[in-house]
């Protein structure tokens, strides 16, 4: 079972991102779960969202998770949220930041020795979509780091997920995914 935890602020699209990923993965015949915890928190509050992926139906409904991937889509949360909670030895971190990997690990000592990737999803989404919605670029970065799907397959699958939106928004998201895919380090 593959397990992913998202750290986000309510309104940045982690739930949509997690559900979009689940949609794409379910199309390949796998079983998925996408869920989130936000209680009665308001826009801007720190929150977490989750994905599970498996080859058999997913029966586990515990919130507790030892993630394979931690996706941080708000730069500030890398500092303030417990992003290493319940980590495994080989948990991979993909973090939204304008810093280099070395600068980030220097600033957040608990990331030392971990497999950390950085990508500036905020800037990418501002440049492409025109709003700070860092969820789709993060999915592009995840595709690169995990090798889950190649870029073209994933973009085509996401086009279907986003099909209810105007073409302009779909195109902007495709550009965001591609940039993050190429820029994640």
């Amino acid at each position, binding site marked *: 079972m593959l397990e992913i935890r998202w750290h986000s602020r309510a309104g940045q699209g982690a739930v949509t991102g997690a559900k979009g990923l689940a*949609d794409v993965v*379910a199309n390949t015949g796998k079983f*998925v779960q996408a869920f989130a915890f936000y209680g009665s928190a308001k826009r801007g509050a720190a929150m977490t969202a989750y994905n599970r992926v498996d080859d058999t*139906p997913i*029966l586990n409904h515990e919130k507790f998770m030892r993630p394979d991937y931690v996706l941080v889509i708000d730069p500030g949360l890398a500092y303030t949220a417990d992003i290493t909670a319940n980590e495994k030895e080989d948990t991979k971190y993909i973090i939204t930041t304008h810093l280099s990997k070395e600068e980030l690990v220097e600033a957040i000592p608990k990331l030392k020795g971990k497999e950390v990737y950085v990508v500036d999803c905020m800037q990418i989404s501002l440049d492409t979509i025109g709003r700070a919605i860092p969820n789709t670029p993060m999915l592009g970065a995840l595709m690169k780091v995990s090798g889950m799907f190649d870029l073209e397959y994933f973009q085509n699958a996401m086009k279907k997920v986003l099909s209810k939106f105007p073409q302009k928004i779909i195109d902007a998201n495709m550009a965001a995914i591609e940039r993050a895919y190429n820029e994640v380090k």
Partner: protein
Amino acid sequence: MAKKYELNEVEVWDGNMAAAQALRQAQVDVVAAYPITPSTPIVQNYSQFLADGYVDGDFIMVESEHSAMSGCVAASASGARAATATSSQGFALMVEVLYQASGMRLPIVLTVVNRALAAPLNVNGDHSDMYLGRDAGWINLCSYNPQEAYDLTLMAFKIGEDLDVRLPVMVHQDGFLCSHTAQNVKPLQDEVAIEFVGEYKPVNTMLDVSNPVTHGVQTEEDWHFEHKARQHNDLMNSPKVIKRVFEEFKALTGREYDFVYKYKMDDAEVAIFALGTTVESAEVAADRMREKGIKAGVVSLRVLRPFPFEQIQEALSGIKALAVMDRSAPGGTLGAMFNELSAAMLAKGESPIMLNYIYGLGGRDTTIDHLTEIFAQLDECAKAGERKYPLQQFIGLRGPKLSFY
């Protein structure tokens, strides 16, 4: 004529979307609703379907849940198929009208997304609202995941509206753990679902002016008891229809439902009983225990009301120790499910060692580790041949261990 909704063979839906799609496919005439977390998206999705032309019926925004159920009662008495959704405080406010709906024999469908009751205010899942309504005279169906929330909501109409039943039906799903958890769901295509649910045939409708009738009348000691006895009698006889609808659904989809749900109970020596999403988590825990050589199983109810007394006796027959998990504050006694299962086993004259666990209140996480710990306690009791722990324990609680009896 409503538009056909394009559906994939496999959709990724949370429990709320699953319930909303089932309401859409049931071609409900009137939805009267007052949205409340975590069931809000059922009503939100449904009103979106309406705005987009996928629903022919009426949607009435009312000023409270009391009015939502009152609106459903009025619509149903007038001859319309009626349904709504609620949770928690909203459910509590509906309770008065829930009894009216069942007493007036109106086959309304209520999708309940289970959530804790205040105080303290809490929007997360537990079964306080389910337990609050369990004596209201409704048929109660329980789902453990979004697929089942969808399937059971479709079946609810066919069961409640059957002329031998004519009773309202609730379909329960866990707040957030089901309602906001997107999973693979295989929906029926619109025409297949519509054909399965069938046309609603109302009885003694208020708007049939050539055959004037009165609804919601007063009966004092002369007739009240007979009305309530007849109502109970028909609820107790509804399993015939429920069984038939389960069979028809299986023939259509291959998905099998029964009054009692069992997982690896054939050779089980210890078992967990739970409701909701915890049933499936307990299956994961049971498999882990089996790897250690402990014969663990899981039992649940698909039909909470009418209570499947004989089937639960049969399911629990021969096991050595049973944990009954109640996800509702027991309010000064043992958990309600513990008491009901105890009664079933007492009547059978053979009882396993039974323990009651209160868990998950207000959305507290119930982990696989909690569940394997329960199985370990059961195994210890089974091997010793006696109860080694207090009758009622609280699990997943911070601070000192809390237990009673």
